[in-house]
């Protein structure tokens, strides 16, 4: 019975799989995942403007997700991860350029 209740509470959640509040962040993980796959690419292929956009949009977007209704922790973690991967890529490129 507990399992059924759990599944029902997820299914009917205001940010659940029947709503755009679920699918939009779920799809956005593809962008962070692509950035993580690109960790092993040569630093010359990293673009400063794009990674800066990821960092800025990521962290500001993470804050944005905590003030909207319904609060979207999926999107929050998504944006936060995007910001972190952006910082890592910028650091990689900066150390490569200054060495």
């Amino acid at each position, binding site marked *: 019975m507990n399992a059924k209740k759990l599944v029902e509470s997820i299914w009917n959640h205001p940010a659940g799989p029947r709503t755009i509040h679920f699918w939009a962040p779920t799809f956005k993980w593809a962008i962070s995942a692509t950035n993580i796959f690109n960790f092993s690419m040569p630093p010359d292929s990293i673009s400063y403007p794009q990674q800066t956009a990821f960092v800025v949009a990521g962290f*500001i977007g993470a804050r944005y997700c905590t*003030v909207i209704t319904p609060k979207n922790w999926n999107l929050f973690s998504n944006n936060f991860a995007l910001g972190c991967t952006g910082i890592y890529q910028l650091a990689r490129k900066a150390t490569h350029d200054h060495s």
Partner: protein
Amino acid sequence: MASFKAFLNSPVGPKTTHFWGPVANWGFVLAGLVDMKKPPEMISGNMTGAMCMYSALFMRFAWMVQPRNYLLLACHASNESVQLYQLSRWAKGTWEKRRKKRFHLREWLLCISVYFFGMMKTNPSTLSLKSNNRTAPVGAPNSY
């Protein structure tokens, strides 16, 4: 002047994250505009296609979120147009290579899933596998 002050102090104005979150997302649009000068061979079809889906989903998200966020909607609408243009440039550039394929699996899967999604939204009973899923008695008048 009064309306500008009202905008400054509004609950979705520049003193709140509801404003700066979408502003930060315009970076994607600017990066896309800069990339318009790239030759089609350097465009990644996967990333551009993913961006198109991403902006389509987030246009709907901006509409449904509380409070409704028109700035985010405008941002993703412009990103959608930029990415669709890039996608068309990529598709034109790779058309010769792709024309040789007889059965484009990705395009077929996309059409079929769009069809099923449309059917599910408009007439859910048609997707049921039951043969006795009649929703009205035989001979009931149509409402349309």
